[in-house]
């Protein structure tokens, strides 16, 4: 069974059609990379999947649990709030600019949602958070506040915060775009380590080499449509569409 199915998603902001019928499926343990130029709708797609935006039409389900489906009138019909609350537990999201809570220490950023949303015991939550932080090489930062950390460390904390909730699928919205190349490396390393644990992930990124190496499936989006999809070898190695070739040429390190 697929962890996530996005079916024929359409979304407009006023008269601007940002998503014009997007279909994406994510299987268990799969790593999906979404690439494309700025303004192609990648981030909007992620925001629709994580309930930060509503779709105009189309269907979304996690493990067969429907977020939204097409009603008899052709309009998008969202599930009742109680269902959405349950469905939120299926996914986690790592933001481009981390969005850690600045007034909470690192450990509290991780444990507070566990304790107050998932209603876990305090000791259990702290033990779990400590273990995850140690795994990410952040054990000595547990009592620091976000402003005391580098961007790379902050992003790793936000990954820990999302992982602690044990999501079925983890979304990354350009997780390294706010970081310099050195810090980018340390965050990518962490994401790569998650693939070894067969974490299901959807990654919107501009890091082409990274996408090529870690993804099982690549979607290339432009102007609100999926232009091309396939394995990294297919999309990066032998792109079929002229638009894809033009886009990738700009990223190839040894362009003639």
């Amino acid at each position: 069974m697929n962890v996530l199915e996005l079916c024929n998603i359409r979304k407009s902001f006023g008269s601007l059609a940002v998503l014009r019928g997007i279909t994406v499926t994510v299987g268990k343990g799969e790593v999906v990379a979404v690439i494309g130029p700025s303004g192609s709708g990648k981030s909007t797609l992620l925001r629709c999947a994580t309930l930060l935006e509503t779709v105009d039409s189309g269907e979304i389900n996690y493990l067969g649990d429907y977020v939204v489906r097409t009603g008899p009138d052709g309009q998008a019909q969202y599930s009742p709030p109680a269902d959405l609350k349950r469905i939120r537990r299926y996914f986690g999201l790592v933001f481009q600019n981390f969005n850690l809570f600045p007034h909470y220490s690192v450990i509290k950023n991780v444990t507070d949602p566990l304790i107050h949303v998932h209603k876990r015991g305090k000791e259990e939550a702290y033990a779990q958070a400590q273990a995850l932080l140690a795994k990410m090489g952040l054990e000595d930062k547990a009592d620091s506040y976000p402003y005391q950390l580098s961007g790379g460390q902050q992003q790793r904390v936000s990954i820990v915060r999302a992982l602690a909730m044990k999501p079925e699928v983890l979304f990354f919205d350009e997780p390294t775009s706010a970081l310099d190349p050195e810090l980018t490396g340390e965050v990518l390393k962490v994401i790569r380590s998650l693939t070894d644990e067969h974490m299901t992930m959807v990654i919107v990124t501009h890091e082409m080499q990274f996408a090529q190496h870690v993804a099982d499936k690549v979607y290339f989006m432009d102007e609100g449509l999926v232009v091309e999809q396939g394995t990294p070898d297919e999309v990066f190695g032998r792109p079929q569409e002229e638009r894809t070739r033009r886009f990738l040429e700009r990223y190839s390190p040894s362009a003639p």
Partner: protein
Amino acid sequence: MSLETIIIQLAIGLLKSIAIFALTLLGSLPLGLLVAFGRMSKWAPLKRLTLTGNGRFKQSLAGIRPLQILVKLYISLMRGTPLMLQLMVVYFGPYYLFKIPIGQNYRFTAVVIGFVLNYAAYFAEIYRSGIESMPVGQYEAAAVLGYSRPQTFFKIILPQVIKRILPSITNEVITLVKDTSLAFAISYSEMFTMARKISSSQSTLVPFVVAGIFYYLFNLIMAYVMERAEKSLSYFR
């Protein structure tokens, strides 16, 4: 009248000034938050009734936010008229409008009601400025993690808002210390009213000097307290 008696008399008045000050903050800080919610309310009950229509008239009806309009009017009245006048309305209003006899004890109540209503309007706008300056990412992170709306506001947003607005609150607190003297408008015997009484009966300016020193010391203490409060929130950025 000796200096000592003047000081004792004024100290009694100072206690009453402090009572006005404390009760005003106790009432207007929470009330201001409620008013801020009303000010930011997007509740538009006519939207539902006019869903079917698309005429210009119906469209404009649908956009009406009654709670927001009401609160805006309240804030504009509180900020647009003198506090002294507002105190007089609260004190004399019940009698002139409804012929309700006013007792001696009502004087203090009227002062506190007037101050709370006035300061809540200012605090509401300060809260609003803080709430609206919060980056949307904080709300989004909380939503994705599954925090409910009240949890998001009270656990994530409000503590950061308080840190941001504390300097503006300090301003209001210091103004309030001096504003308590406006209670003389309805002859409530706080420090300034006392100073005037003693001054005119003894024909001396000493009570005003003493009162001025008391106000200044009071504010010195408040400025220190607020500075400590700001420091206690400096553990995050």
